[in-house]
């Protein structure tokens, strides 16, 4: 292949031009590779975060719709407004749980209870006879009926306590025994807080008795199967109301909580949280759920991927920026290179005329110019794979720092504005989750593990080759259309 040899001779003879093209091509390749690498690192990080965090969707009563309904009914009758919460049937909950993308799910039932044979942890201003002077509004179904009842304890009914929000957030942790498990449904077991246990010398295996806050006749004997420790300081209201004190929260199977609330609540739950296999599937899951028989005039599905969004927000911005870099540099680079190559090929019209006069095939002439620029492209890709990694690291992490700072500022503003109303029933629920997410800006992905991969280099090679071929081919075509006589005559 004589044209390959000619290409080599030409490059060797024109060292300055070759070097200039190599420098330009290398700079272009370094930027493109940085963009590609940052993009793939950002994608990998956000996928990892997405897989780790998942994201969840909560099925619960549509409170807004319920309030509107109450208000319209109230206008037809006298009396104060009453809010009736319609519990979710287990059938509905399970029909949605059977849909695709559900990694796991958990029930939540909140009830209030009084301690029968043990002492609760007193809040500083609460008293035993608080009911004489004040009425505590306890969590649970009775609240839904407008009742103001006295309560010592918050009873959280769950399918598995590990997936209850306090535990999954790391706020609560089992220190002895075990948590509530799915197999505990129907049995009377409980997990209590360490301080409460120590105060009453309670251990795993002991039993406690509690009574429903709304119906003293409804009592339960619960076997302690686990003791947990909470790091929650509780809300400000916990100073006034014992049941809001985090030490006075006990976890029981959802069936036990339902028993405390009354017979009407058998085989129901207040809310169901579905953990997704991937936060990306939330929309598809909600769309599928809306096609089930569940009455979405009464219930609603709330997506909770705020933590994921907060974590990956900056990184997605970086990925998007990196993508733009790739496009911009590729296009600009191709244009710049094409112009440089075009100029250099135009200068070589005479050479083309001579070679054509000797009888060289036109495609071989184009092949020579393409070979020259492709050789430069290959060296540039090689060099950029060496220099691309540190540059991409610096560039990528600097971009991410800027994005993380910007995101933190946005978060602060959001926090000042407030993320919205509190969660249902004792401060849990999605509202709280949003608040938690905003209170932990440090959880945003703050660094990228940027490594140039073979895949990046292959893509860069593809882009580089395409740029090289286009840059050489366009000017070649215009000149190859000329006849050797014309070229040589004009030259002379």
């Amino acid at each position, binding site marked *: 292949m*004589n044209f390959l*040899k000619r290409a080599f*001779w030409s490059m060797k003879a024109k060292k300055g031009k070759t070097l200039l093209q190599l420098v330009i091509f290398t700079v272009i390749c370094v930027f493109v590779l940085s963009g590609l690498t940052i993009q793939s690192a950002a994608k990998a990080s956000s996928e990892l975060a997405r897989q780790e965090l998942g994201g969840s969707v909560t099925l619960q009563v549509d409170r807004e719709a319920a309030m509107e309904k109450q208000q319209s009914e109230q206008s037809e009758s006298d009396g104060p407004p009453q809010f009736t919460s319609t519990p979710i049937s287990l059938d509905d909950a399970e029909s949605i749980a059977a849909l695709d993308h559900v990694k796991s799910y958990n029930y939540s039932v909140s009830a209030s209870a009084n301690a029968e044979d043990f002492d609760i942890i007193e809040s500083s201003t609460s008293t035993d006879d608080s009911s004489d002077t004040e009425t505590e509004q306890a969590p649970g179904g009775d609240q839904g009926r407008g009742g103001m009842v006295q309560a010592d304890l918050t009873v959280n009914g769950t399918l598995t306590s590990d997936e209850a929000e306090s535990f999954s957030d790391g706020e609560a942790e089992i220190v002895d025994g075990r948590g509530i498990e799915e197999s505990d449904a129907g049995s009377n077991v409980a997990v209590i807080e360490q301080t409460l246990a120590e105060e009453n010398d309670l251990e795993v295996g002991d039993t406690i008795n509690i009574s429903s806050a709304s119906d003293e006749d409804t009592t339960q004997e619960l076997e302690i199967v686990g003791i947990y420790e909470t790091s929650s300081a509780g809300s400000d209201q916990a100073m006034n109301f014992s049941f809001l004190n985090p030490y006075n929260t006990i976890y029981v199977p959802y069936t036990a909580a339902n028993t405390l609330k009354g017979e009407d609540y058998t085989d129901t739950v207040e809310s169901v949280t579905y953990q997704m296999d991937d936060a990306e599937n939330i929309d598809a899951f909600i769309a599928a759920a809306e096609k089930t028989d569940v009455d979405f005039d009464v219930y609603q599905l709330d997506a909770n991927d705020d933590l994921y969004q907060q974590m990956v927000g900056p990184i997605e911005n970086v990925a998007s920026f990196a993508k733009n870099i790739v496009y911009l540099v590729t296009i600009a680079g191709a244009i710049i290179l094409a112009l440089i190559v075009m100029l250099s090929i135009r200068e070589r019209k005479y*050479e083309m005329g*001579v*070679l054509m006069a000797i*009888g060289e095939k036109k495609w071989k002439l184009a092949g020579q110019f393409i070979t020259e620029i492709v050789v430069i492209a290959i060296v540039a890709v090689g060099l950029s794979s060496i220099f691309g990694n540190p540059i991409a690291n610096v560039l990528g992490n600097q971009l991410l720092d800027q994005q993380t700072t910007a995101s933190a500022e946005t978060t602060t503003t959001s926090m000042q504005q407030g993320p919205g109303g509190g969660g249902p029933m004792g401060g849990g629920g999605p509202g709280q989750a949003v608040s938690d997410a905003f209170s932990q800006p440090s959880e945003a992905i703050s660094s990228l593990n940027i490594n140039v991969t073979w895949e990046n280099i292959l893509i860069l090679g593809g882009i580089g080759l395409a740029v090289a071929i286009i840059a050489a081919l366009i000017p070649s075509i215009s000149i190859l259309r000329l006849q*050797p006589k014309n070229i*040589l005559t004009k030259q002379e």
Partner: protein
Amino acid sequence: MTAPLLAFKNVGYWYTDKQNPLFQSVNIEFYKNTFYTITGTSGSGKTTFLSLAGGLDKAKEGDIEYDGKSIRKMGLGNFRHDYVSIIFQSYNLIPYMTAYQNIASAMAITGKKVENQEDYILKMLAKVGISEEQAKQRVLTLSGGQQQRVAITRAFCCDTDLIVADEPTGNLDDKTSKEIVKLFTDLAHQENKCVIMVTHDPQIAAQSDVTIQLSNGSFRMLQHV
């Protein structure tokens, strides 16, 4: 009688106006072992005639045959590739290559193969007075005469039977011109080639076997004894 190597058959050529042709109905035959010169005043069409003979341009009418085959049908590119070597006044060497590389490239393009190519090229260059050291220099570092010798050697090494040259001595001094003309004469007579050279120098024309004079579209052939 031997068949002509190149034959112009009723060839006509004009630039833009057919009614005002440069020449018309030209019938000329060229044979091997002959050194032809073409003379004429400026603008008489010498270079155009040579371009037609060298396959750099197409006749507007009529046909040109090489060894009995129409060069139009075989394709001008193929004709140049396989059968003709062209030498221009400006040498037509590739500037970034050495003398050796210029010749090696041309041989590769035309498919001329010899054993031990480097030795062959250096020997051929030595014959025209180009040393090995000069052969490995960039051609632009050589003098005009040396460059023209390289161009002639390139044509010789490609071993085509037809060599066309457009005023190859135009830029050279008398002494060098004579040497170049001697080279062409030797090529024609010793290597059995057909050499067609455009010149406006009557002294050079007188050294050729046949001179074709172009004047106002007419051709007059002068056989030198």
